[in-house]
């Protein structure tokens, strides 16, 4: 791999810049070796050439003081940084920068758990704290608080939240559970948002909004600052936890499932982020495609039927959980059971009804109780050299919308020669529809087809009034371009903010389509 330079920076300047960075963080934490170090900062799941996202260097400060000085160096040279925390954003770009030549700002070393407040139920963490770290810490101190983790337990509590990520307990909407934020602006100013702006505040992590505009959201999915600390509310361990699974026989049941679950969700009988999961997702975490089918194109119905019967899964599989004292769980279950029993062929399972070797059930059971694991990564074993990027439109919780989105994706995906592998994560009033577009990362033609399919899906979804909740670095401009109401008023506002808070344009240029003035014309 050839080395690259940050855009607009000459080789001698780059050498001076690196020397300055080394003075700040030490030689050990400036990574420039294209053979041994920098590949770790690219995305293993790209559908585009790796050169498009190859960083010129990575720098890992240990604390806010070092971070402040790193930003000073970047401002001096006008060098673009790409902020990551734990750097595991796979399916959406991993640690890879939006463009080649950026310097990855790696915050993994800032990994202190600053506070666990058992009484009020929150933790305060730095960017590099993974779900696994927090879980281990809570176990060690004997805490009765739960983590709410994304499916991959190596992800970060803070960055997953800033990406609007989701978990699977009742605290699964991570942005909602964030309270109190510290953020460093591009000029090095450290800001406490909300109640934290009051010196000696007693309520920084208890009340979200402070006085005046609530600005925390401006620092999520954005490039307006570097978030250095957040408070996250943690759920106290409930007196009871009873996860359940309901399987449905027909593909067309998606409509009825969604209609049944909406009132249950809106009325909070289903408190957690529940999941409606299509059968291939269930299959992909535990078997390989080749175990059942070696032909090209989508898997035929007869084979799908055999898989369903072997794995004891449905065409759709609904996962939820009951939380609370047993009598409360019993009552709630009666309502949920009766509602879903109206769908012919529905089968109901609790833990005792599923096998200990049922990989899909076992990891969902853990996620519902906030126990981090990595099982879902098994989807990459589905095909040889498996990789995936996720297409994630938001859907209303209605049968008609769920079916429309499912068919919109399934049909295009089958036509392009891919399997539909997807799930709906049911939130407060919406569903995150996650289509896991799986391809062979050693097959250039397949990657090109996956890339084209993804773009087509963005356009088709937007035409039907559906937008994505986050996206891969390769599609940020394209998707930001679909949020274009009133001559792209929102994007223009973002650009105005960017120009004011980061006039040198050093922080993550191009993140979610927001470019600094100097790079706006040359958008890729």
């Amino acid at each position, binding site marked *: 791999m050839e080395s690259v330079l940050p855009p607009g920076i000459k080789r001698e300047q780059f050498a001076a810049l690196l020397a300055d960075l080394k003075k700040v963080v030490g030689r050990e934490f400036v990574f420039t070796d294209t053979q*041994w170090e920098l*590949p*770790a900062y690219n995305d293993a799941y790209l559908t585009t050439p790796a050169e498009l996202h190859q960083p010129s260097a990575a720098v890992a400060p240990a604390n806010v003081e070092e971070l402040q000085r790193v930003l000073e160096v970047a401002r001096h040279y006008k060098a673009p940084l790409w902020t990551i925390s734990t750097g595991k954003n796979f399916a959406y770009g991993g640690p890879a920068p939006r463009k080649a030549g950026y310097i990855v700002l790696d915050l993994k070393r800032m990994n202190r758990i600053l506070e666990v407040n058992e009484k009020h139920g929150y933790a305060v963490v730095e960017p590099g704290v993974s779900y696994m770290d927090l879980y281990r810490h809570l176990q060690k101190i004997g805490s009765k608080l739960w983590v709410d983790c994304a499916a991959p337990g*190596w992800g970060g509590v803070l960055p997953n939240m800033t990406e609007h990520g989701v978990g699977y307990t009742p605290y699964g909407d991570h942005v909602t559970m964030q309270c109190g934020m510290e953020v460093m602006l591009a000029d090095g100013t450290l800001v406490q948002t909300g109640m934290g702006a009051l010196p000696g505040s007693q309520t920084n992590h208890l009340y979200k909004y402070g006085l005046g505009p609530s600005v925390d959201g401006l620092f999520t999915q954005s490039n307006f600052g570097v978030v250095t600390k957040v408070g996250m509310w943690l759920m106290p361990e409930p007196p009871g936890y009873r996860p359940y699974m309901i399987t449905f026989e027909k593909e067309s049941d998606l409509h009825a499932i969604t209609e049944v679950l909406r009132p249950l969700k809106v009325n909070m009988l289903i408190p957690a982020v529940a999941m409606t999961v299509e059968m291939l997702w269930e299959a992909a975490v535990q078997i390989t495609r080749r175990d059942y089918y070696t032909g090209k194109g989508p898997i035929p119905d007869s084979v799908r039927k055999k898989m369903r019967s072997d794995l004891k899964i449905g065409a759709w599989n609904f996962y939820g959980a009951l939380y609370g004292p047993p009598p409360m769980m019993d009552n709630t279950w009666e309502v949920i059971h009766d509602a879903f029993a109206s769908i012919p062929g529905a089968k109901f399972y609790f833990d005792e009804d599923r096998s200990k070797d049922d990989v899909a059930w076992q*990891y969902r059971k*853990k996620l519902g109780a906030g*126990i981090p694991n*990595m099982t879902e990564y098994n989807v990459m074993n589905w095909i040889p*050299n498996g990789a995936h990027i996720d297409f994630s439109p938001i859907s209303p919780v209605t049968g008609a919308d769920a079916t429309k989105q499912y068919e919109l994706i399934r049909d295009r995906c089958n036509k392009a020669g891919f399997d539909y592998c997807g799930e709906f994560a049911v939130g407060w009033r919406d569903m995150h529809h996650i289509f896991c577009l799986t391809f062979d990362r050693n097959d250039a033609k397949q990657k090109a087809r996956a890339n084209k399919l993804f773009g087509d899906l963005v356009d088709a979804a937007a035409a039907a009034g559906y937008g994505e909740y986050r996206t891969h670095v390769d599609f940020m401009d394209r998707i930001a371009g679909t949020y274009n109401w009133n001559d792209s008023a929102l994007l223009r506002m973002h650009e105005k903010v960017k120009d004011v808070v980061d006039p040198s344009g050093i922080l993550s240029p191009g993140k979610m389509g927001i470019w600094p003035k100097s790079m706006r014309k040359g958008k890729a």
Partner: protein
Amino acid sequence: MSITLSSRRTFLQATVRGGAALPLLTSLGVATNAIASDLTETENSLCLFEADAAMGADMAAGVRQIGLAYQTVTLDDAAGWSAMLDTLESARGRSLAVLGRPATVFAVRGMLEPTWRVVLEGRHGRQVGSQMRHEFAGLDAPMKQLAGWLDRVRDPAQYAVVLASMTRGEFSADAERKTLDLNSHVWPGSDLVSLLAWPKGVV
């Protein structure tokens, strides 16, 4: 434990003669205790492998016999993953052999880099027909040594032992990265990926 380049080299020079011959003897059931007892500082190498019933037990026996420390890896539970993190934390300065299914090894690699050096990655996949495809990427020297063993090992467990013994090799960091694709007879079980990783500072 951190190891300086010179002490590491001294150690390697003392032990490299054990090299990859050792595991074959092991796999053939020849007593290797005498040879293994010659090896000093065995704690300097470590083997991580996926806790998979199909290959796990044999593999553990093999690596134990050549005196390597080992740790099983799992994606599935917090305790196992946590134990692996602890092992990696305490393994700073050791060399590592890793073998598991693609997703598992991807995850392990994600925890190693960029502070470790992955000197070799091997992707071992069943082909249509009765062939196994091995795609290696990394340094030439370990690649060539491993290539010689592909047809001689019976299954992943034996391969793991060969791989683990390679952690005792000595490779130059300056060597160019290469790729090598080879076929062998089929091994039982699923597709696998292997890694050889060296501590930063040694390579």
